[in-house]
Every structure is written in structure tokens, then in C-alpha cells.
């Protein structure tokens, strides 16, 4: 009787348009009252411990750096650079969209920011150069999702926090699948646009490199610092903020301190939406652990899904369905602690499983009805939802192919560890 009661409560809250935060408070209070052997206020102890962690400091700083980078001309500079290298190839402009999205995603770590920043510059250029409208929308939507898997990525940090997996290892592991997806997108656009005429460069490569040098240095500094072991993830985030401020305020002079203040408030709003959910997801995880539910869940799940292959298939289907309905942050915070012990029991490397999970949820950005990049693209490119979905379809297929490869070839993820 207790479990249907909980489901009924959650369903009622869903219909009343409640946030994940409210649903977690309600579910935890219910769980403490019905199954707990301590008073509900003890959930605040776990909530406090969740917030009181050094590892979380990288998240606000990466979000801040990403938001600072999205103002001004950094995306446009990166785009010009990519165009200078690809313009002479048939389909080069579409290829530059993939590469510019990948590079800008590596700088900002955000899918929607990448889609908007690069899309604003390249979408009119693609249409003006005679590229198919559907392909143009699709490539920008898909390129935007690369921000999820290319380090430094907030979802990778969240997975690391929720499952106690090394965030640096996840950053290393994300590189292979990211390159695979970039390769798949690039090969597809080059094949689709093989009959498009090559174009003139806007700038010579040397000029473009000089024009974008400052912006280009940002991902090199952050990723180089992390991969060389010189910086921890948090230190690299602090360096990213300092460098972006120097660039935007001091060198490019595209932002004043008042603009920086606005970005601080905007980023605080994002953190205020994410961290309380994180805090309560940790509480839920701790409650489940106190009640020894993960062990029970693992043993009962193993009676149904008893092999590595069937687990990977079942978990991927579950994640695809979840990713198309809820945002990636909520999906990771709730599902990662549930699926992680099962994966470990089946001898699946936790880093490999985490990357597979993120690649899978990345597809959720492109799938109806709730794909965030589809919704953002509708507004940014002023097209109907059905048109955006049709544009996204070939790229969803490519991402599914990428997911199968990532799931089946752990070496692609683990070769740098």
C-alpha cells in the first residue's frame, strides 16, 4: 500500500507542474515517515553534507566561464577560424559548423549555449551559401549537443559526484566518444554536401588564427591543464574564469563589470535550480543506502537482467526514454546511483558506464517531445517543431550509432586511463 501511495503522490505533483525539487522533498518526507527509522529532519544532515563538498566548486565556475564566453564575439571568432580551414572543401561550411560547435562546446560545456552562439553566426551563413535548411538546422542542433560529452562537462561532474567516480578519469574518457561523434557528424555532412561548390575564405588561415588566438587559447589552457595533470578540475575551472574575464573585459573589451555582474546573477539562477536538486538527490541516495535498498534492487534486478549485454540494452532503453522526457541533470542525479551499482556488479567499468550514460542522455537533447535543443532551435531559427524534428532525425541516427559503438567498445572510452 505504501509504494502505490508514493507513486500517486508523485503523479499528482507531476500533474500540478511541480519541480523535481518539490517532488524530491515530497518523496523523501514520505519515505522517512513510512519506511524511515529516524525523523524527517535528518534528511537535512545529508543535504548539508552534500553541499559541503569541495568537488562541487568546479560546477559554478565552469557555468560562469561558459556564460562569460557566450557573451561577445568568442563564438564568431572560433567560427571564422574553422571556416578558414574548411571553406575550400565541398560542404566545408557545414563541416565548419560541426567543428566550431565542438570547439565552443569544449569552452562552455553547455549544449544550448553552443547551439545559440554558433547557430546565430552560422545559420544565416549556411542558408545564404545555399545549404539545405533542414541539414543546417540538424547539424547545428547535433553539434550543440557535443557540449555534454566534451570535457569539461557539467553532466560528467554530476555523474562523478553521484557515483564517487574520478572526475578527471571521466574527463579523459569523454574524449574518445566525443571525437567519434565529431567524426560521424563530419563524415555525414561531407557526404550530404559532396556536390556543394567550395567557397572563398573570409580570411586567410594566418589572419583567422591571429583573430581567434585568444579565444582558441581558452580550451587549450583548460583541457591542457587538466590532461597534463597540472590543474585539478576545480583549479582548471578557476583558471577558465580568470582567463575569460581577462579576455572579455581586458583584451576584447566587449564586457564591462556591470555585464559581469549580470552574468554572475544569471549563473546564480542556474546554480539555484541545480544545486538544491543535487542536494536532495544525495539525500535520497543516502536514504536508500541506509535502508539497504541498492543491495535489494541489485539482487532483484540481476534476476531479470543477468548478463552484461542484456543490462546494457535495458539500461540504454531506459535512459533513452528518460532522456526524451526529463532534463539531463535530473536524469543523472536520480538514475546514476541506481544503475551504477548494478553496472559494477556486472563488471562494467564505472567510467565506461558513466560515459555511455552521458552519450545516451545527450541524444535526449535531440528527441521529441522534450529535446531541449529542438525547443531552442525552434525559437532561434524560427521554424516549426515538426521541421526541427525532421532535421534532427539523421543526426539522432548517427548518435544512436555512436552510442552502440561506445557501449560495445569500452576501449574507446578507457584508452587514456
Amino acid at each position: 500500500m505504501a509504494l502505490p501511495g508514493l507513486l500517486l503522490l508523485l503523479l499528482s505533483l507531476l500533474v500540478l507542474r511541480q519541480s523535481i525539487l518539490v517532488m524530491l522533498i515530497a518523496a523523501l518526507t514520505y519515505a522517512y515517515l513510512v519506511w524511515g527509522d529516524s525523523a524527517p529532519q535528518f534528511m537535512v544532515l545529508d543535504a548539508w553534507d552534500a553541499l559541503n563538498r569541495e568537488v562541487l566548486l568546479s560546477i559554478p565556475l565552469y557555468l560562469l566561464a561558459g556564460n562569460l564566453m557566450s557573451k561577445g564575439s568568442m563564438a564568431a571568432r572560433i567560427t571564422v577560424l574553422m571556416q578558414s580551414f574548411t571553406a575550400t572543401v565541398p560542404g566545408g561550411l557545414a563541416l565548419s559548423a560541426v567543428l566550431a560547435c565542438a570547439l565552443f562546446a569544449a569552452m562552455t560545456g553547455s549544449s544550448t549555449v553552443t547551439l545559440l552562439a554558433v547557430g546565430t553566426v552560422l545559420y544565416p551563413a549556411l542558408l545564404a551559401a545555399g545549404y539545405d535548411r533542414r541539414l543546417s538546422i540538424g547539424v547545428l542542433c547535433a553539434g550543440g549537443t557535443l557540449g555534454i560529452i566534451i570535457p569539461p562537462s557539467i553532466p560528467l561532474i554530476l555523474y562523478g559526484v553521484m557515483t564517487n567516480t574520478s572526475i578527471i578519469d571521466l574527463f579523459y574518457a569523454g574524449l574518445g566518444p566525443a571525437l567519434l561523434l565529431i567524426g560521424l557528424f563530419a563524415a555525414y555532412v561531407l557526404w550530404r554536401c559532396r556536390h556543394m561548390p567550395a567557397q572563398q575564405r573570409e580570411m586567410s588561415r594566418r589572419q583567422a588564427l591571429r583573430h581567434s588566438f585568444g579565444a582558441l587559447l581558452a580550451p587549450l589552457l583548460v583541457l591542457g591543464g587538466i590532461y597534463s595533470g597540472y590543474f585539478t578540475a576545480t583549479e582548471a575551472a578557476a583558471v577558465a574564469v580568470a582567463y575569460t574575464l581577462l579576455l572579455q573585459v581586458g583584451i576584447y573589451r566587449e564586457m564591462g563589470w556591470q555585464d559581469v555582474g549580470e552574468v554572475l546573477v544569471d549563473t546564480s539562477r542556474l546554480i539555484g535550480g541545480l544545486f538544491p536538486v543535487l542536494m536532495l538527490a544525495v539525500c535520497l541516495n543516502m536514504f536508500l543506502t541506509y535502508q539497504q535498498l541498492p543491495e535489494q534492487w541489485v539482487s532483484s534486478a540481476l534476476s531479470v537482467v543477468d548478463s552484461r549485454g542484456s543490462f546494457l540494452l535495458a539500461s540504454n532503453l531506459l535512459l533513452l526514454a528518460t532522456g526524451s522526457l526529463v532534463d539531463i541533470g535530473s536524469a543523472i542525479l536520480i538514475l546514476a546511483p541506481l544503475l551504477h551499482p548494478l553496472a559494477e556488479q556486472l563488471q562494467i567499468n564505472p567510467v565506461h558506464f558513466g560515459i555511455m550514460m552521458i552519450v545516451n542522455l545527450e541524444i535526449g537533447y535531440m528527441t521529441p517531445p522534450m529535446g531541449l535543443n529542438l525547443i531552442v532551435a525552434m525559437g532561434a531559427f524560427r521554424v516549426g517543431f515538426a521541421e526541427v524534428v525532421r532535421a534532427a532525425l539523421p543526426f539522432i541516427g548517427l548518435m544512436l550509432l555512436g552510442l552502440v559503438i561506445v557501449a560495445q567498445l569500452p576501449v574507446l572510452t578507457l584508452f587514456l586511463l
Partner: protein
Amino acid sequence: MAALLQKLDLWERTLCALAFSVLAIVLIADVLLREISGNGLPWVQQSGIYANVVVALFGLGLATSAGSHLRPRFADHWLPLAWQPMLQRIGYAVTGFFLLLFAVFALQFSLQTRALDEVATVLRIPLWPMQLLIVIAFASAALRSFIYCLQPQLGPESD
């Protein structure tokens, strides 16, 4: 009501911007000092964590006023459109209730911490005032939701 919401918003925006600046400055200073002198500052991480707590908790109010909380939207059209205004008001009341409930739990918890004289490990300052921020932040977000329930036109556009 609108004036109260504006004051609340201004107060939380200012606090968040200040705490975020502290967070960024102390962590950047720590990296720079380590590069220059080879030693970081021992209190930096803990100060950064507390600054982050302030940003996360008062950002909650900002997220509430912008209607930008993480929310599953696939069930938004399960009930008739004509019911939406009524459902929206009930929704605000329910949000306010649960946020206030959590604030009450947090108050009980911070009073216990105070009674036990618990202090932060590195900074050696009492923990309860920091934990009291959870109470203030959740109560403030609850107050906003109750105001939106009474006057839905003051609520965020995205709701």
C-alpha cells in the same frame, strides 16, 4: 506584494553576486599563490564551499522568481486547458507548502547543531549560522510561491 518581491529579488541578487565574486576570487587567488609561492591558502577551499552554499541557496529564490527550476514538462497537457489557471494556483500553494516544510526541517536541524556547539573543521566557526541559510533560502522561496498563489499575475512568465 510586488514591492516585497522586488526587494526580495534585489537582496538575493546582491547576495549571490557578492558570494559568487568571493568564490571566484578566492579560488583564482589560491591557484595564483600556489604558482608564485608554491603554497596555497589553507582556508580557501572551506571559504569557497561556504560562498558556493550562499550562491546555491539564494540562487534558489532567483530560480523560483524566474520559473527556471528543473521540471518535467511532459505531463503539462494531461488535464484540460480550461483548468490550468486553477491548477497553477494550487501548484504554487503545493510548492510553497513543501518548500516551507523543508525550511522547518532545516530549522530543527540547525537548532540541534547549535545545541551541540558544532564548528567547521578548518575555519573553526560555528556551523549553525551557515545551516540557518537553508532555512532562510527555502522560507524565502516558499514565501514567493505563496504570493504567486494569491496573485498569479506576479508569477514568472514561464509558469
